[in-house]
């Protein structure tokens, strides 16, 4: 019964994520309007067949801008998760598998960092390093390392004392081989679900930073900034609603995916 329920979640998660993914891919080649093209005669048009999501205060097409923003957010989140999960896995694997004093030190620092909302840490780093798209991706990647490291360390610690790993040691496998050939495949579903959770956090952090004006900078379109700009002209609700909803969908898709993967795996 419950299994079925989570399958529904999984299907929805996959559909939502796929639709958004396809949209992002298509947007590389085609967009109905230039997202930055202003047209004062066309400003504040309500949604119509011509402008699906209406137009904003400069007469820009909200649909095209939303897709463009989606693309930015998507790419930032993607690179963030790639950096975070790759380095996080390495750090977690080494500290979790070998333990000892290095583990104590790294994890102590890790704990302090991870007890903070990732957004705060990202803000401080933006303050230190300054703004810019590459810097933003790097900052967010680094900010996400601790959470991945923590999860992977837990997995490696749990698995390294299991009988089958002891048996691999007796066979004479090297530490490296044990870590990545024996243990790592066992952590895949955990990694997968943390990647989904991480992705969704990254979307949130990027959108929040951009909303606060310290994330993605013009000329790159961003969902967060679209919202903060649209706050100035509330009554044209479509300027707020559509970018917001796309953001919600993006996060919802990830959450459903990660949730269902974990539940279905657990059985």
């Amino acid at each position: 019964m419950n299994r079925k329920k989570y399958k529904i979640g999984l299907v929805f998660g996959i559909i939502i994520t796929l639709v958004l993914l396809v949209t992002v891919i298509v947007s590389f080649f085609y967009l109905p309007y230039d997202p930055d093209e202003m047209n004062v005669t066309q400003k504040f048009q309500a949604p119509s067949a011509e402008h699906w999501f209406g137009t904003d205060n400069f007469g820009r097409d909200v649909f095209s801008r939303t897709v463009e923003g989606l693309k930015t957010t998507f790419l930032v989140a993607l690179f963030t998760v790639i950096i975070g999960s790759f380095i996080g896995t390495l750090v977690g694997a080494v500290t979790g598998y070998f333990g000892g004093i290095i583990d104590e030190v790294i994890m102590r620092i890790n704990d302090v960092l991870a007890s903070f909302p990732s957004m705060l840490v990202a803000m401080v780093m933006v303050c230190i390093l300054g703004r810019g798209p590459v810097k933003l991706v790097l900052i967010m990647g680094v900010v996400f390392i601790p959470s991945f490291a923590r999860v992977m360390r837990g997995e490696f610690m749990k698995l390294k004392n299991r009988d089958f790993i002891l048996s691999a040691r007796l066979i004479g496998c090297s530490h490296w081989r044990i870590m990545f050939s024996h243990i790592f495949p066992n952590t895949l579903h955990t990694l997968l679900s943390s990647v989904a959770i991480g992705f969704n956090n990254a979307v949130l952090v990027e959108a929040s930073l951009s909303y606060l004006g310290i994330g993605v900078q013009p000329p790159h379109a961003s969902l967060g900034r679209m919202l903060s700009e649209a706050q100035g002209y509330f009554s044209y609700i479509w300027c707020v609603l559509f970018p917001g909803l796309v953001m919600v969908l993006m996060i919802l898709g990830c959450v459903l995916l990660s949730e269902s993967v974990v539940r279905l795996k657990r059985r």
Partner: protein
Amino acid sequence: MKSVLYIIRKIVSLILTLLLVSVIAFFVYEIIPGDSVTSMLGTEYTEERAEALREELGYNKPIYERYLIWLENFVTGDMGESVNYKMPVADIIADKLPVTLWLGLISMLQIIIISIPLGVWFAWREHKGKGIFIEYFNQFVMSIPSFFLGIIIIYIFGNILKLFTPGQYVDYKENIVGFILYLIPATITVAISKISMVAKFTRNSMVEQLQADYVRTARSKGASELRIFLHHILRNGLTPVITFLGMVVAEVMAGSIIVEQVFNIPGLGRTLVVAVGNRDLPIVQAIIVYMAALVIIVNFFVDIVYKFIDPRITIGMGRE
């Protein structure tokens, strides 16, 4: 005796963690590319002046000495001067801190009062074997970024229903009641997604207990389902929630930074955002240390409370 030891251990760990935070905050200040002397002097920059100022600020001393001086100053309330406002950071924080504390406190209250009964109710339904689609709704609510939610709330309750006037901030020093009323929509915004989160956690934690062996034992005693739920599952299921609430405090803090921006509330969060924008490091440093300390201290108390609720917590871990 054991409890006293436990608390002492926790206090030591608390102090160590706070020191670690201070070290990180201090070094963050040290590694900024382009030193702040240059930006402080701005257009009046000359080599001699910069050198003089460095001497005056003690930048030529060894790093650990500077750390100790900085720490001593910080603890005694001298947190430096804002680059932008040319005002002591301590004064700025003293002015803004109450706003954010109120915001966080009211949000936390809402979260605790609403989410726990909600989570328990979800679990009770699960216990009774009812399929729930509320869970999906909950998931949906959790997925709404707080600034989007805030804008929607302002639009619906402010612009359409006219229940409050957006942007008409009331200072807490003039009218505390008006101030709190102004905060309410903002606190709701912060609280909603956290309520979903905590409710979900509560539910999962309780549902995990439903299959426990001791529940079967209780059932074999002939206890009614309601009694089993209230006497056995509830307490076991709720203890982990306390720890989770400790973590939520940090989230509420992050939430308030954004929501202050959405609702135009001049608290620590807005100050932080502006300071980050201007790279006004003394303020950023101080606010981060404050927030960190708050989170760490709250979690310290959570640990202590937990110890008294769950008899299983002992000082160390037993044998594997």
